[in-house]
Every structure is written in C-alpha cells, then in structure tokens.
C-alpha cells in the first residue's frame, strides 16, 4: 500500500494536534478549568488517527475514551471539543455529558459513547447491518479496549457481525491495562485477536504505535468489509503512558515497562519515519507545532468565552420531537 504525502501530512497534523490538545487538557485540569475527570490519550495517537483515516467520509465510527485523535480526524473541531471538556453549551453534548462521553455528531459519522463499556460495539454492528440492508457501501469502525474485551457484549457483537458478514471493523486498543488491572489479570491468553478465529473472522495483531501498520491494516480490513467480505478484529498493542485518568499516578505500573515503551512513542516513531522519507525537518516541525498551539489557544478562548448551558432548559430534549 502507498502512503501519499498528503495522507502522511494529515496524519502528522492530527496526531500532533491530539498530543498537544491532550497536554493542554492536562494543564487546564490542573488549573481547575475542566469539569470532572480526564483521560490521557498518550500512547493511543497512532491507533485513533491511523484507523480513523482509513475511512471515507460516509463511514462511521464508535470511538472509546482514548480516541480523541479519531474525533479530530473525523472533523470535530478543537473548539467544540474544548467546549465539551469545559461543560459549555457549545460542546456536542451542550454540557450534559462528560468529556468525550456523549460527544457524538452523526453528521461527522461519530457516535457518542456511554461509560458502560463496550455498549458502542453492538451499535457499530447495527450501523453496519443497516449499511448491508440498504446496500450502501459504507463501513463502521468500532474501538474497544483490552478491559472492554472481557465484557460479554463483545462476544455477542463479534458473533453477530460474523454471522451476517457485516461491514464492520473492530479495533482493540490493547494498552496493557484496564485501569489498574494488567491484561494478565484479565485474561489467560496474550492476544485478544486470537479469539477471532472462533467466529470465523480474521484477527490480526498490530503494533499500535506504528501509524503505518495501523493505517495499512485498517484500510485493508475496511475495504474488504466494504466489498462484502465481512468483519475483522484488529488488535493494536500499545501502552497507556499515563494513569487511567488524571488522578491516577499509576504506582501499579512497573517503571521498567514504561521505560521500555517510552522510546516507542507513536509520535517519535512516526516523525522518525517522516524524516527518513524527507518529509519532515525541524522547520516544518516547528511550524506545525506553532500552528497547533495557536489553534488550541483559539479553541480554549472559544470555550472559555462560550456560554454555560441554560439551567432553565434542564429537562428539555429528554425526548426527541
């Protein structure tokens, strides 16, 4: 597969934006400017961006809580996302749902998730089912974690998708931990992808920190799914480089494990490749980072100046009209 320069440039932008936005969120949280908790994205950039960029504009995603990059890549603006984190009226949930939760916009093909993991997975399957019934050449892309993989619903959804041969691709973001629980305390086998065989589905293990691998494999699976060849389960191995959420100092993670993954940061790896391909140099890099900081400044300013939700409308919209 070819990676066009344009694609790589886009990917670079979205991944760097994700990283910088995430860092900004961290700062804002510490400044008390965010509401509630905060999940770091660090380590998941290549997965969320690499997979999301494998889709066409009419495809849909059901992201999880470490897929900020996918929201960006699908066209959700930093201003709206920042509003969401600040609980403002201008966020996709208008201050009703928390951080990336309920951060959906069907016009962008994004389904907002609920906390209850992995409730988005059958929703992705249902969307794919609709595409098949309506003979639309569209694909649904679902994300879930190693933790979520132990919930029964995953089994129902994989079985359903494979039974009806639906155009859906499952991305497992195996970041070694579910909150404080290492995968060895969640399952006996090392690879979640190995379960795919039981459903007659192809299961692939990918280096989740390698944008190229994630993108290429997802793209292939997406196009096979689009062509009627049914679903696939892609397990992207990565490492959650921060605590489960911002309050968590992850004292339970061995220092060596983090040290081992540090040099494999998805952005470092990606940028190294770009430089090798002569697509990136210090000037470009600085330009990009500066531009992104400006954009995030603007998003922050937008959100900070955005109106709070209107409590007199508290009970409105519980039902659609």
């Amino acid at each position: 597969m070819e990676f066009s320069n344009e694609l790589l440039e886009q990917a670079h932008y979205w991944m760097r934006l994700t990283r910088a936005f995430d860092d900004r969120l961290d700062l804002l949280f510490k400044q008390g400017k965010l509401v509630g908790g905060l999940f770091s994205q660090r380590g998941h950039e290549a997965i969320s961006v690499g997979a999301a960029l494998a889709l066409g504009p009419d495809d849909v995603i059901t992201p999880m809580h470490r897929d900020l990059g996918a929201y960006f890549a699908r066209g959700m603006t930093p201003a709206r996302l920042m509003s969401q984190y600040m609980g403002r009226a201008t966020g996709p949930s208008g201050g009703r749902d928390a951080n990336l939760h309920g951060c959906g916009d069907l016009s962008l093909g994004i389904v907002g998730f609920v906390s209850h993991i992995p409730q988005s997975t059958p929703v992705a399957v249902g969307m794919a089912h609709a595409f098949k019934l309506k003979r639309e050449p569209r694909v649904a892309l679902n994300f879930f974690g190693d933790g979520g993989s132990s919930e029964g619903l995953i089994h129902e959804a994989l079985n359903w998708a494979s039974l009806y041969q639906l155009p859906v691709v499952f991305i497992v973001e195996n970041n070694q931990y579910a909150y404080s629980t290492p995968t060895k305390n969640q399952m006996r086998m090392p690879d979640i992808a190995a379960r795919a065989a039981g459903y007659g589905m192809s299961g692939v293990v990918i280096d989740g920190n390698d944008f190229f691998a994630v993108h290429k494999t997802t793209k292939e699976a997406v196009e096979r799914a689009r062509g009627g060849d049914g679903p696939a389960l892609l397990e992207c191995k990565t490492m959650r480089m921060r605590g489960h959420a911002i309050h968590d100092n992850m004292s339970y993670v061995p220092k060596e494990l983090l040290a081992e993954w540090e040099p494999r940061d998805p952005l470092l790896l990606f940028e190294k490749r770009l430089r090798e391909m002569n697509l990136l140099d210090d000037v470009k890099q600085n330009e990009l980072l500066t531009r992104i900081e400006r954009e995030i400044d603007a998003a922050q300013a937008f959100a900070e100046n955005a109106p709070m939700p209107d409590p007199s409308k508290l009970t409105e919209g519980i039902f659609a009209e």
Partner: protein
Amino acid sequence: MTWDSIIPRETKNEISRSARNDIAREDNARELTYLEAIRDALQYEMRRDPRGLVMGEDVGVFGGAFKLTQGLFEEFGEERVIDTPMSELCMVGAATGMAFMGLRPVVEMQFADFISTGFDSIVQFAATNHYRWGAPVPWVIRAPSGGGLRGGPFHSQNPEAWFVHAPGLKVVAPATPADARGLLLSALRDPNPVIYFEYKALYRSIRGNVPEGEEGIVPIGRAKTARAGNDLSIITYGAPLHEALKAADELARENVSVEILDLRSLKPLDTDAILETARKTSKVMIVHEANLTCGVGAEIAALISQHAFEFLDAPIVRLAAPDIPPPYAPILEDASRPNKEKILQAAKKLLAY
C-alpha cells in the same frame, strides 16, 4: 424457556399462504383479536415505510413464539424479518445503530421477562442518547408480558416500572385490540425508543373492532376513560382492565357507578386524566399486575396525593401482585394476581369508607 400453550390448537397451524395480503386477520372480519391487531400494525407500517424491520428470536421462519409475526417473513423477506441469535443485549444495541442509520427496527423480546437481558443497552445507551447529544433513537421493543398462563416466574413478568423509572424511554401498555394497533403505529413513528408492553393473556382472548389504514392512531401519552362513572375511579392498564370492567359491571347492578381510566401510556403518564378522574370521584383504586412496591401504581398514588389531595375522600388503594416472582402453580398464581373478585372486594371497602 418458552412455550405457547396459550395458542389454541386451531390457530397453531400455519396461516395459508394465500391469506398473505391480509395476514393480520385470522378470520375474515375486521374485528381483530389483540394479537391480530398488533400484527396488523406491523404489517401496515412495514408496507408503508420501507425503513421498518422486525428482529428477534424465532420471529422469522417460525413466525414468533406466539405466531404473532407469522406471515411477515414471507411478505418482507429475511432482511426485514430477522431471526437473530440469542443475544438480547446485542440486539438492542444493534437496533440503536440501525436507528441511527435511518432504519426503524422493532425488536421482539420473546417474553417481556427477557428484557432484563438487554437492559443495559436500553436504559444506558438508547434512553439517554437524545438528551446527551441529540441523536434520536427511533426503535420499538415489543415485550409480551403478564401472567395467567401458568408460565411461572420467568414467563409472566410485568417489568414496566423499571423503564418508567429510567429517564428517556416512552412506555406503552395497550389493553384492547384498537389501542394495541393504534399505539403500535404511534410507537413505530415516534423518534424515541418505545417499550411496547403487550399482554399474552389478551392475545387471542379478546377481540374488537380495529380501524384500518391511517385511522385509529392512538397518541402516546393519552389515557382513555374506558367507562365513565361517579362513585369510584379505578385506574389501571393492560390485562387487568378487563377484570376492572367486569367488576364495574357487577357494581353497576348494585347502582354503584365506577369510572375506569385505562392509562394506555405509562411514560409519559397522562397526569391530567389521572387527576381529573380522582377529582371527579374522590375515591381512587389503582390496579396492576406488576409487583406492588415502586410499581406504576405507586407513582399514580403519589401524583394524586400531591396534586389532587383536596379532592380525596378516602385513602388511595392499590391492588397489585405482592413482591414475589410470579408463581407457577395455578392456585398460587391465581392468589397472586388482581382479579375481578379482589377488585370488587376492595371497591366495596373503599365505597364504604
């Protein structure tokens, strides 16, 4: 497990394929049974709206555990009448996804009892979605409910209160063939997730005139005065309506005039109609098949005691199942369900208050 011993032998045979164009009717009148009225609404709407589809366990080739969907598979094919694996939770989630992508799925729970298996996706995802980020979830779950058929603890449940309590769902519970059709048509066109409770005990035991076409659509949220009266209000819904009507007939012979309000919709509740009948008769009895504590009857009593307090001449009485699983042995099941006799007894006590 499942059975449908309640299907009378005559109707168990397949409906002749030639009756296809009018599968709702098991005979030739437009007087339909409750079950036929539901089937008619499904068929009518699926013909009218190509987005409609039905899915569930055994709803296709077999025509459903109660033969309610019989004929739909033949008419609409396996893509719109889907025999699913046993996966209620995925089924509900998939319905939500289908609804997002412009379809109008109807999920049949084989028995209402199994709706607890799909609970999480109903109350957490579908119910809250529009409030949270504005995307409507237009699906319907059909839940064959209620006892009286010796089904025991897992084929007789009346779980509506869970869904009335959970924010974001509409809940209906028709008691007559006309309302069964009229409310199902409304549910199928509603942009919100609707839980449609239907009563197995009524499937083939009651018939009634059922309007055709666009006639007879019953709006969600509107109760119906099933019988007007002055001395006492009975507020009820679902199968017990018919017990209440029988009791009212008997009381009429003793010159007692009973008003019966059939709620039909449980969420939103028709608060106006509830308060109106309470204000009118000043004596209220609430009857339902579901367990007593925190049931829909509790909510109605609470509404009345808050908003029609001045009008009350007597305590508000509730008749419901005790807080036990529906028992199996006939002698136990009968003891656990509200029926005409119990209604009469409670009514007389209330009238004498």
